[in-house]
C-alpha cells in the first residue's frame, strides 16, 4: 500500500485523473484501481476508497443540490452523519436514493447520480427557489399553500411533490434477498474505533462472549484517520494487530459493515449488516443485507463523537468541510479536499487538521480561531500560516465551490484569504443516540460544550468520545476499562491485558455557535444550521419570534433534524441558537428524543425472508394436491388454501361450477374437504365439567357416541364461535371450531384450563393438523359411506342415527376412521376423519367408490350455498355483534349451569326485544338480486339511518330454488315472516322489494337430514 509514487503512474493518457490524490500513504490499495461513474462521468479511484473519497480525489466538489433551495452542495463529512453528499446509487430495481457518498464502499462499475437537480447538477432550474426563499421560511407549508383550498389537490401538492423530496426510489420490486439472524452474547461493543477496539480486546481477553459491530467496512475508526502513535506505531498498524488478536479469540465475533440501529427492551439490539452492498450485486444465494437481533447482558457504547459545524453566511458551499473529515480524507484516503485549505475552529482539535494537511504537503491559507490569542498561543506553535483570532464571516464561491473566506479579526481588521477548501470545527458532540432509545436523557456538560449520555439503563456503558472522553490516549483507556467492567459485570473477571497507549492531545474548547450578522457587515448569505433540510439561522429566529420555542416545537416548525440524517450535525446547533434567542442555557433548552433506527434501513431488511408468498405461512390441507389435480380454484381462508370450486369441462364461470356442485349434493352425493376446521381433543376426568363452562349449552349430558352443536360466548355475552362436540368416551371429547377461530379457541381453552380453573383435571390438545376430515353429503351419502367402511360398521339410519358418532377400521389396510353423522347442508351427511396422511387416499377412494352414484367434490362456494339454503349461521352471522338470541339460538343458553359470557349476556341491551334477529329474505321479483351488506327498511318511510331495521348478512343464488336467497338480521324478525320490506344498498345504489321469511329455505323441518 502507498508505494506508488504518483496517482497517475498506472493511468493511461485517456484515463480520468485524480488531481487531488496525494502521492503516498493512506489506507487504499493503489495496486487495485476501481472505475466508477458519477452523473455519467467516468472516474477512477482505488480499492479502499469510499465514493466520497474517490470524488474528493478526483477534484469533484459539487455533488448534490439541496432539498429546498437547490443550493449547490459538496461533501461535508467523512462518515454516516453526512447531510449533503446524498446520491442515488445503482440503477433500475436496485436504485437507492439518499445514499450517503461518505459510507459507500467503492466497487468496480459503481454508478451514482446526484439528487435534487433538474435538469442537471450544474444548471439546476429549481435553484430559483432561492429567489423565492421567503416563501420557504420556517413553517412555510403551514402558511404558504393554504388558500384557496381548491388548489391544494390540483396544483400545490403535485408541484410540491415533484419539486421536493430526497431522491427517487426504485419503482420495481426489490430483486435482492435479506435475512435475519439472532445472536446472543455477554458484551456487545458498538463501534470499532480506538475505544471500541480497546473494549473488545479487554472484555474478550477476560473471557466474555463479545460481539463487535462497526459500521465501516474497515474497522478502526479514528485510529485510521489520525496520525497519533498507538503503542509506539501508527494507528492503522495497531488496528491490524488488534484485529488479528480478536480473530484468534473464539469468544469474539467482529462484524464489519454492521450498524447498530436500535436499542430495545431486555438487552435486545438491532444491527444491520451490509453483506453485499460493496459488490455490484449480491452473489447467488447471498443476501444483500442481514438484520441482526443481538441479545446481550452489557453493551459498550463506543460510538464516538460527531464534529459539529459553525453557523455563518454561506457555510454550505462546496469546499466547506468538517475539519476532522478533511483529516480523514488526507490521512486515511490520501485525498486532499483542496490544494489550499483554511481552517475555522473554536477548539484545539481543529488545529490538527492544519498540521496534518501541512504534513501532507497541502498549503494552509490561514487558521481562524474564535478564541482569543492567549488561548491559541500553545496550539498555534509550529503552524506556518497566518493565524487570526476572529471569525469567518462568509465564504466566497464560484460555480464550483469555495474560492476564499472573508475574515474579521478580534482587533476589528478584515481579511480575505484565497482557498479552495474551508475546514470547520465547532467542537464535538458525543454520539449519544443509542443511549436515548430507551428514554435516556443526555446532560449538558459545560466544560466540553456538549451533551453526554445520562439517564440510560445500567446495562449500557458509554465509553470514550461517546461518553465525552476526548483524546486518543484517554479513549483507549476508557475503552479498555469499560470492557473490563462489562466483562466483570457478566461474570468474567479474567485479566483485560495491557492497556493500549497513546498520547493525550489538547482538547480545549470555548463554545461558539454562530457568527453573528450584526457584527459582520455586508453578510447577506444564508447561514445554514441543518444542511439536509435547508434550515437556516433565520428560520430558527422566526420560530422563536412566532413562539415555537421548545425543542419539540422548534423541530416540527422548522423541520430541523427531521431529514434522513436525523440532525446529527444540526440538532445541538439549533438548540444552542434557540437557547441564545431565549436567553436561557442549553441545559434548560434540552434536547429532542432519539428513536430507532439510528441509520436509514431498507424495508427489505426489516421484512427479511417474509415477503411475497413467504410473507405468511401457507397451510395446505392433506388433499390439496389431489384438489389441484381436480382443477380446483383456491381461496385464502386465514392461512389456509381451501378449494372454492372445481371447474369441469364446459364450465366457464364459477357460478356454473358452484351450481353443479350444489345440485350434485342435493341430487346425488358430494364431498368437501373440511380439514381446516379447528380440532381439539379435550381429555380428562373433568372434561365434561370443563366443556360445560366454556360452551353455553350442556356438554356433560352428551352421551358417548353422540355429537352436539355447541356455542361459545365471549365474556361480554356476544356469540364467539360455534362447532360440533363429539364424545368419544366418558373422558374424551373431540371439539371442532370454525376455521377462522381455530387458534384463538385453542388459546381460550388453554386460558380457561390454566388461568381460570387450574384445579380441573383436564387436558387440551390441538389436533387440527393430525386429521384429514371430509364431509360427505347427499341422498347417496349413506350408500357411499357404507361402501367406504365396508363391514366395519353399520351406517344405516338405525345403525348410526343423526348426530351419532362411531369409529370404523377401513377395509383393505385402511386406517381407523372416525365417522360423525352431522350435516351442514341439510342432506343426509357424514363427516369422516382419517389420519392426515390418508387425506388424499380418502378423496381418491370416495371418487372411485361413488363413480356410479354421480359423486363429485364440492368447494367452499357450494358449501356456503348449501348452508344458506338450510339456514345455518356462519361467519357473516357470527360477526361479533350478535347474541345467541339474535341468531335464534337462545335455546342453547343453558339455565342449568354457569358458563363464560352468561352474566353479561343478561345486560338489558343484549336482551332487548327489538334486537335485529335472524330471518331469511327473498326478492319479491325473483329475477332481482341484492348483495350482503344491504340494509332492510319497512315498506314505507324514508330510507334514512333512523329507519334502518337491520341488514343482510349472507346472499347467494340458490340453484335449488332458482333465485336469490339471503340471511339477515331484522328487528323483531321472527314476528315478521311474510312481511314485505325494502332492501336498500346505498353503496351500489339499488333498492328492491323483498319478503321476510324463515331462514330455512330447504327442508325446514329437518326431516331430510335426519332420514
Amino acid at each position, binding site marked *: 500500500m502507498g508505494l506508488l509514487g504518483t496517482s497517475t503512474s498506472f493511468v493511461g493518457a485517456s484515463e480520468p485523473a485524480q488531481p487531488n490524490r496525494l502521492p503516498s500513504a493512506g489506507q487504499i490499495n493503489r495496486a487495485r484501481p476501481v472505475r466508477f461513474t458519477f452523473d455519467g462521468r467516468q472516474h477512477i479511484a482505488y480499492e479502499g476508497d469510499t465514493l466520497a473519497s474517490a470524488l474528493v480525489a478526483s477534484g469533484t466538489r459539487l455533488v448534490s443540490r439541496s432539498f429546498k433551495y437547490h443550493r449547490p452542495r459538496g461533501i461535508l463529512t467523512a462518515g454516516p452523519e453526512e447531510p449533503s453528499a446524498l446520491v442515488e446509487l445503482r440503477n433500475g430495481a436496485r436504485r437507492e436514493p439518499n445514499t450517503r457518498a461518505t459510507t459507500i464502499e467503492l466497487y468496480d462499475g459503481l454508478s451514482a447520480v446526484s439528487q435534487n437537480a433538474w435538469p442537471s447538477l450544474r444548471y439546476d432550474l429549481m435553484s430559483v427557489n432561492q429567489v423565492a426563499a421567503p416563501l420557504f421560511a420556517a413553517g412555510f407549508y403551514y402558511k404558504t399553500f393554504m388558500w384557496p383550498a381548491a388548489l391544494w389537490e390540483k396544483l400545490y401538492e403535485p408541484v410540491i411533490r415533484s419539486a421536493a423530496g430526497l431522491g427517487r426510489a426504485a419503482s420495481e420490486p426489490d430483486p435482492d434477498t435479506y435475512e435475519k439472524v*439472532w445472536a446472543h452474547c455477554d458484551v456487545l461493543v458498538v463501534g470499532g474505533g480506538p475505544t471500541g477496539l480497546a473494549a473488545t480486546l479487554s472484555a474478550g481477553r477476560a473471557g466474555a462472549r463479545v460481539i463487535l459491530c462497526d459500521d465501516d467496512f474497515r474497522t478502526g475508526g479514528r485510529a485510521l484517520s489520525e496520525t497519533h502513535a498507538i503503542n509506539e506505531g501508527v494507528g492503522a498498524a495497531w488496528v491490524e494487530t488488534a484485529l488479528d488478536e480478536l480473530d484468534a479469540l473464539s469468544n469474539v465475533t467482529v462484524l464489519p459493515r454492521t450498524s447498530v440501529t436500535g436499542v*430495545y*427492551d*431486555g*438487552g*435486545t439490539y438491532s444491527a444491520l449488516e451490509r453483506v453485499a452492498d460493496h459488490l455490484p450485486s449480491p452473489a447467488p444465494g447471498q443476501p444483500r443485507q442481514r438484520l441482526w*437481533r443481538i*441479545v446481550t447482558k452489557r453493551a459498550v457504547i463506543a460510538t464516538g463523537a460527531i464534529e459539529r459545524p459553525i453557523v455563518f453566511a454561506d457555510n454550505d458551499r462546496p469546499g466547506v468541510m468538517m475539519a476532522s473529515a478533511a483529516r480523514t480524507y488526507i490521512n486515511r484516503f490520501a485525498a486532499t479536499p483542496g490544494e489550499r485549505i483554511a481552517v475555522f475552529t473554536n477548539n484545539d482539535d481543529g488545529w490538527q487538521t492544519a498540521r496534518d494537511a501541512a504534513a501532507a504537503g497541502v498549503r494552509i491559507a490561514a487558521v481562524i480561531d474564535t478564541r482569543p490569542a492567549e488561548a491559541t498561543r500553545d496550539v498555534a506553535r509550529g503552524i506556518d500560516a497566518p493565524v487570526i483570532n476572529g471569525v469567518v464571516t462568509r465564504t466566497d464561491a464560484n460555480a464550483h465551490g469555495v474560492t476564499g473566506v472573508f475574515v474579521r479579526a478580534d482587533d476589528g481588521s478584515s481579511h480575505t484569504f484565497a482557498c479552495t477548501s474551508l475546514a470547520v470545527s465547532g467542537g464535538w458532540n458525543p454520539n449519544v443516540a443509542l443511549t436515548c432509545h*430507551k428514554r435516556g436523557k443526555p446532560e449538558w456538560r459545560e466544560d466540553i460544550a456538549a451533551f453526554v449520555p445520562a439517564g440510560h*439503563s445500567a446495562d449500557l456503558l458509554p465509553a470514550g468520545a461517546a461518553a465525552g472522553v476526548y483524546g486518543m490516549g484517554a479513549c483507549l483507556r476508557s475503552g479498555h476499562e469499560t470492557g473490563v467492567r462489562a466483562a466483570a459485570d457478566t461474570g468474567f473477571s479474567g485479566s483485560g491485558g495491557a492497556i493500549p497507549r497513546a498520547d493525550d492531545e489538547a482538547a480545549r474548547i470555548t463554545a461558539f455557535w454562530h457568527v453573528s450578522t450584526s457584527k459582520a457587515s455586508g453578510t447577506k448569505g444564508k447561514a445554514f444550521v441543518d444542511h439536509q433540510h435547508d434550515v437556516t439561522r433565520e428560520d430558527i429566529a422566526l420560530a422563536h419570534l412566532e413562539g415555537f420555542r421548545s425543542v419539540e416545537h422548534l423541530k416540527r416548525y422548522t423541520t430541523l433534524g427531521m431529514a434522513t440524517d436525523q440532525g446529527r450535525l444540526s440538532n445541538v446547533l439549533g438548540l444552542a441558537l434557540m437557547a441564545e434567542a431565549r436567553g436561557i442555557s442549553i441545559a434548560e433548552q434540552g434536547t429532542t428524543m432519539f428513536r430507532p433506527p439510528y441509520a436509514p434501513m431498507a424495508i427489505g431488511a426489516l421484512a427479511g425472508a417474509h415477503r411475497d408468498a413467504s410473507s405468511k405461512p401457507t397451510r395446505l390441507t392433506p388433499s390439496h394436491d389431489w384438489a389441484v389435480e381436480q382443477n380446483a380454484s383456491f381461496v385464502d381462508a386465514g392461512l389456509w388454501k381451501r378449494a372454492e370450486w372445481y371447474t369441469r369441462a364446459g364450465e366457464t364461470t364459477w357460478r356454473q361450477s358452484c351450481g353443479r356442485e350444489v345440485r350434485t349434493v342435493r341430487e346425488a352425493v358430494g364431498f368437501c374437504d373440511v380439514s381446516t376446521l379447528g380440532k381439539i381433543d379435550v381429555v380428562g376426568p373433568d372434561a365434561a365439567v370443563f366443556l360445560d*363452562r366454556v360452551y353455553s349449552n350442556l356438554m356433560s349430558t352428551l352421551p358417548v357416541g353422540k355429537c352436539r352443536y355447541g356455542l361459545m360466548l365471549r*365474556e*361480554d355475552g356476544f356469540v364467539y364461535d360455534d362447532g360440533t362436540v363429539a364424545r368419544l368416551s366418558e373422558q374424551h371429547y373431540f371439539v371442532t371450531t370454525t376455521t377462522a377461530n381455530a387458534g384463538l379457541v*385453542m*388459546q381460550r381453552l*388453554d*386460558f380457561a384450563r*390454566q*388461568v*381460570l380453573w*387450574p384445579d380441573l383435571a383436564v387436558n387440551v390438545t390441538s389436533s387440527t393438523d393430525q386429521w384429514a376430515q371430509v364431509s360427505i353429503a347427499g341422498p347417496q351419502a349413506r350408500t357411499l359411506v357404507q361402501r367406504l367402511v365396508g363391514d366395519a360398521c353399520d351406517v344405516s339410519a338405525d345403525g348410526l342415527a343423526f348426530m351419532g358418532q362411531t369409529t370404523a377400521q377401513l377395509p383393505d389396510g385402511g386406517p381407523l376412521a372416525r365417522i360423525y353423522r352431522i350435516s351442514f347442508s341439510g342432506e343426509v351427511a357424514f363427516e369422516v376423519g382419517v389420519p392426515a396422511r390418508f387425506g388424499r387416499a380418502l378423496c381418491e377412494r370416495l371418487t372411485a367408490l361413488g363413480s356410479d352414484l354421480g359423486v363429485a367434490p364440492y368447494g367452499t362456494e357450494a358449501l356456503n350455498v348449501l348452508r344458506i339454503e338450510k339456514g345455518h349461521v356462519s361467519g357473516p352471522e357470527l360477526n361479533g355483534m350478535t347474541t345467541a338470541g339474535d341468531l335464534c339460538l337462545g335455546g342453547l343458553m*343453558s*339455565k*342449568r*349451569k*354457569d*358458563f*363464560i359470557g*352468561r*352474566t*353479561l349476556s*343478561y*345486560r338489558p341491551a343484549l336482551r332487548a326485544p327489538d334486537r335485529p334477529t335472524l330471518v331469511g329474505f327473498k326478492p319479491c321479483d325473483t329475477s332481482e338480486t341484492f348483495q350482503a351488506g344491504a340494509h332492510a327498511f319497512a315498506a314505507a318511510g324514508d330510507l334514512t339511518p333512523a329507519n334502518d331495521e337491520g341488514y343482510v348478512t349472507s346472499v347467494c343464488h340458490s340453484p335449488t330454488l332458482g333465485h336469490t336467497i339471503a340471511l339477515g338480521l331484522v328487528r323483531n324478525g321472527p314476528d315478521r315472516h311474510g312481511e314485505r320490506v325494502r332492501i336498500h344498498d346505498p353503496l351500489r345504489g339499488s333498492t328492491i322489494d323483498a319478503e321476510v321469511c324463515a331462514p330455512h329455505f330447504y327442508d325446514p323441518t329437518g326431516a331430510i337430514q335426519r332420514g
Partner: protein
Amino acid sequence: MRITCPHCGQRDISEFTYLGDGSIRTLALGFGGPDAPPDAEIDAAHDAVFLRDNPRGHHRELWYHALGCRQWVDVVRNTATHDVISTRAAAAAHVELER
C-alpha cells in the same frame, strides 16, 4: 422485550401474546341457573371485562407463550421501563389469587 417463561426460559416477546391485567379474573362461577344474575354480579362482571387501570410502574399481567409451550404466564412488569420483574406459571399464581 424478553420474558422468562417458567417452562422455556428467557424468550423474545415475539413468541408471546398479551392478554392484559393479570389480577382480574373475568369469570366468577356460581350464578348459573334459571334466573338472571343479580345486578351486582352483572356490574362486577362489566367492570372486570371492560374497566382497566393503566398504572405507571409495576403491573401484573398475563402473557401466553403461543409460539412456545402454550402456557399462560403471570408476569409482573414495570410499564415505565418494560423491565420484567417476575414471572411464574399462571396456574400457580391462581392459587394465591383465590386466597
